[in-house]
């Protein structure tokens, strides 16, 4: 399954975050958003990934970018995960129908029933501006890639 690419219209979605609040693609209009697909709450690698993103969140927001984590975990699990990380990054639950948004964005791993690790940057016009999938889900996309992509989009 191919990851959505730059220039494509961002696939529509409407998910609930860790607090049960609805977050839809249309809510992202007018801002730069980075969707952070990750396989599972509480897995050690995801924990490192979101911890470091949390540290650079003020810088990313200064650049006008908002981050959203997405996994197939249930909202209550994501609530606990968010609390344990002490992160402000909203975590969206792609739980039911499971992985529907992961499928739409081309990050679904059918044999494991999870989303693979990937980043998708969506512009204020709801067009995909950049996307990245590491060669292995064990490889964590560095926060530098997000800054580089913001630079490239701004250029």
């Amino acid at each position, binding site marked *: 399954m191919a990851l959505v690419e730059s220039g494509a219209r961002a696939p529509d979605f409407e998910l609930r975050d860790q607090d049960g609040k609805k977050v839809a693609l249309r809510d992202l209009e007018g801002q730069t958003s980075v969707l952070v697909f990750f396989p599972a709450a509480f897995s050690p*690698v995801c*924990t*490192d*990934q979101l*911890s*470091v993103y*949390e*540290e*650079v969140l003020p810088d990313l927001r200064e650049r006008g970018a908002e981050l959203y984590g997405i996994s197939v975990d249930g909202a209550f699990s994501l609530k606990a995960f968010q609390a344990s*990380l*002490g*992160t402000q990054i909203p975590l969206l639950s792609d739980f039911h129908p499971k992985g529907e948004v992961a499928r739409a964005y081309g990050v679904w791993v059918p044999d494991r029933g999870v989303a693979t690790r990937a980043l998708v940057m969506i512009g204020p016009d709801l067009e995909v501006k950049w996307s990245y999938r590491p060669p292995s889900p064990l490889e*964590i*996309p*560095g*926060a*530098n*890639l997000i*800054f580089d992509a913001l630079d490239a989009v701004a250029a």
Partner: protein
Amino acid sequence: MRGEGTLVIEYADLECPYCAKANALLSELAVRRVFRHFPVVSKHPRARVLAHALEAAAIQGAFWEMHGSLMGDQGHLDDPHLWQRCERLGLDVAAFDRDRRSDAVADRVERDFRSGVRAGVMSTPTLFVDGEAHPGVPGTALLARLGGRSAHR
């Protein structure tokens, strides 16, 4: 920076147990070590406080002594423990306490952290050898390479 031999730049978090393990392994090798702070506070609440404490000790010329002290015992990291460590190392505790809250020290740690982010560091420890990133506790292959290349072993 200390030592002679292959340059190893390490990004580490003083509250991270894997960094302590990596430190123990690297201490056995004759390498030139450069330490850079990568405190991940959402994971280790004391990480930044400890990074500042280490830089404050560095002002008194005791960077590696304090580094060894913190990495050698990550079970005692509260303020009174830090003061005890200073006393044991013969440091001026009042100056240490003033310096660790200074902007200069905070800026130094922040500069290290940002350089790590720019270099793509996402977990601690991450070692850079010959410009190549090695996340995690160094494995036997990397250790053999570092040990084997040393001219001072």
